[in-house]
């Protein structure tokens, strides 16, 4: 078995944790274990490591771009290290900045990664008005093309009313 982190050396450290009835296993080599400071089981949670695994790419990317090896949210200054330490985010924009690390994390955490619940009422009304307007305008074009001017006038009034209500 090869190490999941460096993918080169033989894995000699095998960790298992049960989080919310789900068993998670990690197999890594001695050297990577030392680097990640995994020898003291009391200070370590597999979630942190899994989080670390997901963020590897971003850290590398940041290094390639000549960064400090730690990406930061330009809006609030929250860093990848802060995220790993606290498992919290700094502001709403962090969700954009740390999207890559989050994607994997959310999969194991939730039922899905697409929101299916309540939408802000204003946004919902906007979406509804938008859809309604598009439908009315299509009908208006059709009515004009068919030279049905009575229907067209009626539709024009409806569009006006919908725009005023939005």
């Amino acid at each position, binding site marked *: 078995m090869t190490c999941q982190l460096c993918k080169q050396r033989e894995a000699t450290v095998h960790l298992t944790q049960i989080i*919310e*009835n789900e068993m998670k296993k990690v197999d890594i080599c001695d050297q990577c274990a030392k680097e990640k400071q995994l020898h003291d089981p009391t200070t370590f949670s597999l979630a942190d490591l899994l989080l670390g695994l997901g963020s590897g790419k971003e850290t590398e990317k940041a290094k390639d771009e000549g960064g400090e090896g730690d990406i930061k949210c330009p*809006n*609030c200054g*929250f860093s990848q290290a*802060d995220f790993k330490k*606290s*498992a*919290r*985010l*700094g*502001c*709403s924009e962090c*969700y954009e900045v740390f999207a890559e690390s*989050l994607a994997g*994390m*959310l999969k194991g*955490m*939730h*039922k*899905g*990664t*697409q*929101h*299916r*619940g*309540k*939408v*802000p*009422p*204003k*946004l919902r009304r906007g979406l509804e008005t938008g859809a309604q307007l598009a439908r009315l305008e299509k009908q208006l074009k059709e009515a004009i093309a068919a030279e049905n001017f009575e229907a067209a006038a009626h539709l024009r009034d409806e569009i006006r009313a919908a725009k005023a209500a939005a």
Partner: protein
Amino acid sequence: MSVLDFLISPAEACARSGPNDKIVLSSRVRLARNLRTVPFPTHAKKADRVRAYETLVPAVRSLAMMGDDAFADSMEKLTALEKQVLVERHLISREHAAKGAGSGLVLNREESLSVMVNEEDHLRMQSLRPGMQLRQSWLALDAVDSALQEQVEFAFTPQYGYLTACPTNLGTGIRVSAMLHLPGLVLGEQINQIIQAVNKLGLAVRGLYGEGTEALGNIFQVSNQMTLGEAESDIVERLDKVLKQIIENEENARIGLLEKKPKVLFNHIGRAFGVLSNAHTISSKETMNLLSLLRLGVDLGMLPASRKGLVDELFLVSQPAHLQLAHPAKEKLGADERDLFRADQLRTRLAALEKPDHTKVVLPPAKA
């Protein structure tokens, strides 16, 4: 005005009733929300937290459903004791009790709606009702949330839903939970099976004061874990279904105990009464476990049904902050002094209580 003058008395609070409240003590729904333009409270600078506070407290207070006599104040203005009383009433979280300047609380007259400002998120809003009322709690809180969104803009993306400081609350930001009294399942040694089955459905089982607390007094809190990828109503319905199942299991466990080990059960309840009404020093843990048995005695008919309120009240007033409040001394009581005073209170209040009478037990029909 002190929040203590605002709060409903323990007797009045415990006199409230709701559907299935023999087993379901209370139903609670909470929503986590954040302002779009301000960093989350856990990371925000003081000026940002103050900005969120000054935007949100007046906005929440102005909502029609909060009434025109709501309590609203900064956590800084509350004493440690007042905060602890609020925790014992389940009106704020233990985390919020540790907050000071820049954090706040808005509470309606009935204490059915409680809004924490700058807890882990800018808003943690909860709707709390007696008995099994998950749906009603959700609808009430949904209305509060919608009304608030006419005034302020929350952080939201179409993919991730409502954004929260901790990704575990992302999406709906909803936590639906019920407080269950399950002495039958504990005495019948079936509780672990139930907890495991409930866990498998993605629901969490916790103790009296939430995460990381012990299940004292045979009280368990069941709640959803996942908040993203599912609609609020589906989460509420699923929990509702599971609760109905647990209620049935608890009822059957009680019947099973009455049929198979009536003497063991009567012995537990009789001794609980004996100790509670005669002890001169008693710990909080022992009190809760014995009061749980007394409550079971009421449910089974061994004590008059009208005594349920008293038992629930004793449960509340024997908590540390409530004891301190009732004690004439201003100085903080030590654990030993509290145990003495708790026993005094219990002896006095239980002096008028009838003895548990096992001949009055009526066996309810078993459900399939």
